[in-house]
């Protein structure tokens, strides 16, 4: 059997076998890809800053993340004397586990997923919100003002950005007519990034804020609040947060690839490879943005979410809804140009409304 053919629908077998195999695949995939991502981002950032990045451990520095992992594992594990010990211990797990759970519904190729939920994307949004509780627990349990400030910033930011994020997803759901990620991928004969250019932009920016990556990384702004919520963490507990951060980036890359770039679809190459290529491409975009854009202030972040992304996401949802109602037999390709034009006009018009007082905090 050649490996390009789709897998049989009952692969790899019965209920428990399927469960066992996919749990192992997901665990291995997440841990391995996070390590590759660490190397990939540091090398990429290095090249963008006209230097080489890690190049000592192994060929091309490929084992740098292994060396870092060994270092983190052997470090002393410190718990603050006046911290809330139980919360402090639980926080890394609460932050990391939901990220793993999200992978249960992401299709690696046709039917290759742990659970083909009919409300897949709803599940993703619901579960991924839990990890912010872990971050707040870390901030609270540390009994440290920087940790608490960092954690509170995160909560404010994540809660605000959930809304445009959800509304951007609704656009995709309207076009595909399903919440299941398998069916969303199956509906993408043309990748949805073309039908939803504005939705893609909103989703990208909101998810960057969700996973607290630059330019929305105020929660661990090292020039202001040391390291934010993980100031007091060391050893493997710190490692868990680090892992969770990159696993979240992986989740976002995978979801963007699935919702907007056609998931595992694409010609010639095997579907899994297509999926991985898209994930790595999206992650490149994420750290490319990180290398370019400076960190924004907390008031700018909140203003951006409520005054810019939220209205645009609402308008985008309504326009998509009208298009779907008027053209019930699926959207024809000329609508792509209309949607791109609408996106450009809306961004330009809304940029004129949206001002943040040239560097001053708004009254």
């Amino acid at each position: 059997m050649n490996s390009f053919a789709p897998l049989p629908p009952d692969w790899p077998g019965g209920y428990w076998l399927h469960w066992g195999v996919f749990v192992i695949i997901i665990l291995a995939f997440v841990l391995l890809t996070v390590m590759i991502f660490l190397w990939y981002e540091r090398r990429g950032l290095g090249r963008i800053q006209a230097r080489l990045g890690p190049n000592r451990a192994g060929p091309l520095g490929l084992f740098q993340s292994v060396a870092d992992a060994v270092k983190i594992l052997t470090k002393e594990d410190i718990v603050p004397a006046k911290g809330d010990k139980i919360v402090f211990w639980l926080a890394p797990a609460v932050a990391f586990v939901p990220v793993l759970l999200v992978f249960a519904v992401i299709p690696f190729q046709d039917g290759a997923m742990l659970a083909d939920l009919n409300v897949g994307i709803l599940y993703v949004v619901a579960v991924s919100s839990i990890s912010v509780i872990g971050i707040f627990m870390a901030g609270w349990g540390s009994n440290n003002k920087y940790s608490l400030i960092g954690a509170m910033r995160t909560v404010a930011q994540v809660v605000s950005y959930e809304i445009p994020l959800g509304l951007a997803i609704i656009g995709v759901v309207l076009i595909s007519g399903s919440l299941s990620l398998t069916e969303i991928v199956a509906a993408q004969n043309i990748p949805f990034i073309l039908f939803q250019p504005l939705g893609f932009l909103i989703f990208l920016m909101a998810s960057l804020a969700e996973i607290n990556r630059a330019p929305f990384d105020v929660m661990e702004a090292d020039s202001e609040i040391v390291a934010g919520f993980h100031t007091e963490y060391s050893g493997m507990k710190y490692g868990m947060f680090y892992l969770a951060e990159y696993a979240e980036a992986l989740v976002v890359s995978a979801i963007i690839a699935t919702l907007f770039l056609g998931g595992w679809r694409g010609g010639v190459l095997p579907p899994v490879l297509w999926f991985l290529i898209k994930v790595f491409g999206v992650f490149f975009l994420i750290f490319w943005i990180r290398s370019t854009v400076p960190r924004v202030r907390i008031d700018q972040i909140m203003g951006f979410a409520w005054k810019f992304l939220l209205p645009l996401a609402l308008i985008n949802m309504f326009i998509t809804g009208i298009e779907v109602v008027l053209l019930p037999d699926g959207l024809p390709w000329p609508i792509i140009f209309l949607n791109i034009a609408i996106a450009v006009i809306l961004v330009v018009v809304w940029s004129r409304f949206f001002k943040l007082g040239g560097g001053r905090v708004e009254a």
Partner: protein
Amino acid sequence: MKPERFGLGILKGMAVTSKHLFRRPVTTQYPEERLTVSRRIRGNELIWSREKCTGCATCAKACPQGAIEITTGKPEGDRYPVEKFQVDSGYCIFCGLCVESCPYGALCLGYEYEKAKYRRKELVKAKEELETSAEKQPSGYAHPEIEETLPRQTLLLEREESKK
């Protein structure tokens, strides 16, 4: 109406960073790759000339650290025989004041800069260890006549251009 207001500023920035992605890295991979240092480098060793030194001890007086220890015997003609000339390079701050103060040009700073040692006492140098040898070459600091003979420093600017 500035175009930067509408997200074009970010796109411009991203164009700049993507250009840098294909640039040659400017970093030097140090132990494997070395640049030629400045001709007037104050390298971390002191070089003493047995022929030129008259034992006047001006260097020992000029040293702000008191790192130079010098003892001389009875005068022979116009010079003192130097019995002991010892430098504790652990105290030396490589200011070059001894080199500048020497009226006979008997002292130079070295051209080398890799002189890390495992033991403190290895840093104390007797006069035999201070003379010029194959690996101990003087730098052009305060000695323009030596500077003339040394190769020019590599500039990163020139490196970038030579690759084009």
